[in-house]
């Protein structure tokens, strides 16, 4: 954990500047370091967060180069290789490193292609819900009054239902399918972003620079987008990163229940659904997609935690 004994990088002159980064500031006329350098300085001390970042980058590489990395097509069925165990067990072979499933599809290839789907799911869900949540939260925070109350009531209603339940209901209505699952998960998550944005906007609104801008004649749109929004980004970045985890987990849950991606799409949750019956005979079909989900979500959670610690000014001590 972060050391309390004092920062070895602190300037010997004892100037009251924020933690000077080893790259800049010292020895000069006391220019504060670039915010990015300062952020990185805190971030990289958190080994978990850096590990998370590395894993995510690796996943992105896998997702992009799945065509090259995967030994087989994810939907190709090898009828003569049904339920082949992984290479380290009896009967396994290097052709199918992690074994095959009940209709002869290579587990490793499906897991690798699944990375592409999961990252896509995370990206789309987070972008969609962030955009809508931002718009809604800013409107509520900015205009206040009846608009604020109405919007927040609506958010409360969405939050009153357990998130998985709401996602299931929306998915049941829209019908099964990967895109519908992404929509349902986005809907469920919007209230969190809306609340966060509204809180940040309300905090900023009372500050002098907003008042000054308003007095100078800035219209509401300019105030929202140019003045207030850039200062609310820190908690939103953290929430968006953690939102990746929620998106992947919820989409996998929907896939597991049959409401998300449909077979033969190699989405990790869907892969788990069709493998329930083979729990005893072929545990490898169940293990690897789950491990993939765990590693991915863990990486995003570590990254999100690390970002929160690095961006939170109160912890900069």
């Amino acid at each position, binding site marked *: *954990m972060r050391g309390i004994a004092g920062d070895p990088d602190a300037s010997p002159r004892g100037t009251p500047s924020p933690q000077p980064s080893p790259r800049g500031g010292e020895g000069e006329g006391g220019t504060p370091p670039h915010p990015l350098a300062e952020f990185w300085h805190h971030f990289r001390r958190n080994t978990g967060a850096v590990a998370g970042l590395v894993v995510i980058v690796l996943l992105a590489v896998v997702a992009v180069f799945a065509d090259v990395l995967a030994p087989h097509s994810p939907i190709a069925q090898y009828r003569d290789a049904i339920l082949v165990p992984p290479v380290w067990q009896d009967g396994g072979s290097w052709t199918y490193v992690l074994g095959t499933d009940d209709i002869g599809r290579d587990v490793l290839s499906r897991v690798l292609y699944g990375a592409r789907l999961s990252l896509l799911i995370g990206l789309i869900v987070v972008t969609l819900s962030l955009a809508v949540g931002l718009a809604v939260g800013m409107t509520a925070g900015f205009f206040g009054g009846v608009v604020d109350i109405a919007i927040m*009531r*609506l958010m*409360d*209603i*969405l939050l*009153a*239902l*357990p*998130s*998985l*339940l709401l996602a*299931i*209901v*929306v998915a*049941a*209505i829209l*019908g099964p399918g990967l895109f519908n699952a992404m929509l349902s998960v986005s809907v469920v998550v919007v209230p969190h972003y809306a609340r966060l944005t509204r809180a940040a906007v309300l905090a900023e609104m009372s500050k002098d620079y907003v008042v000054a801008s308003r007095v100078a004649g800035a219209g509401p749109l300019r105030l929202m987008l140019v003045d207030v929004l850039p200062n609310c980004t820190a908690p939103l970045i953290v929430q968006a990163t953690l939102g990746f*985890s929620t998106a992947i*987990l919820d989409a*996998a*849950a929907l896939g*597991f*229940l*049959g*409401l998300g991606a449909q077979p033969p799409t190699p989405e990790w*949750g869907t892969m*788990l659904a069709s493998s*329930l019956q083979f*729990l*005893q005979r072929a*545990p490898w079909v*169940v*293990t690897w*997609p*789950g491990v993939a*989900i*765990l590693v991915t*979500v*863990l990486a995003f*959670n*570590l990254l999100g*935690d690390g970002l929160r610690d690095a961006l939170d000014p109160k912890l900069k001590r």
Partner: protein
Amino acid sequence: MLRFILTRLGLVVPTFLGVTLLSFVLIRLVPGDPIEVRMGERGVSPERLAELRHELGLDQPLWKQFLDYVGGVLSGDFGESLVTRNPVLGEFLALFPATIELAVCAMLFAVLVGLPAGIVAAVKRGTWFDHGVMGASLTGYSMPIFWWGLLLILFFSVQLGWTPVSGRLGLMFYVEPVTGFMLVDTWMAGDWDAFRSALHHLILPAVVLGTIPLAVVARMTRSAMLEVLGEDYIRTARAKGLREVRVIGLHALRNALIPVVTVIGLQVGTLLGGAILTETIFAWPGVGKWLVESINRRDYPALQGGVLLVATTVMGVNLLVDLLYGVLNPRIRHAR
């Protein structure tokens, strides 16, 4: 205090109406005419269709249908299941005790393990125990719980044979359902073999369902304790020479518990959501499994009623937690 209670209650009513509207609208959005869905493949003549629509009130304007529905809900009529033709409320209440039993045991597991873990992690901050607890918590809520359940079944039921795979009670036992809670019923009947069987069936699902609340409670307890341990009055207590156990157990814990209690209460929503997945894996005959089956069977009245009932339960518990928080923390109830 009364004002506080009334304000909180006042906030719940519009939310409840909103949730009712939401479930009403969502189900109405399902493609397909409800009557034709009922009639199935046989088809129905236009006159009969018009008759049925009038009977079911489907030819009324939507707002009137909604008001009728709300009226029905308030008098306990949540409609009938399309599949079993039984009242939805009746089906829900028959299955609810199973889910409650599971949720309560899961929460007990989460608190009994998470609370001490969080306290010790806070006291021994920075040690391997602390890192271990935090690492385990993070892993706990990064896992898909349906996969975790499958893994545990694989290990404990299939490989070790310690616990059964599904259901609430061994097939050879029959117990008169008095409360609907298997542990209570078997206890009351004095059937100790059945009680042990019920316990065995309960362990794995409770652990699986309780994993995420466990992670949350452990983290929350740790951070609350850390915050409290940094306060001046703790330093004073130590300076006065009080035993460390007393300082932590009495002075620190009491104040750290306030946010923890809130978090515990708020986990109810997570528990009911997670119950859906857990019950599916363990074939646990509760509300979650019933909801999933309703979706698969396109039993829309059951889905609508079930969603509303679950949401109402969650809101009710959140309200209780809010009030309890006001009781525990005087600053909240005198805030205005």
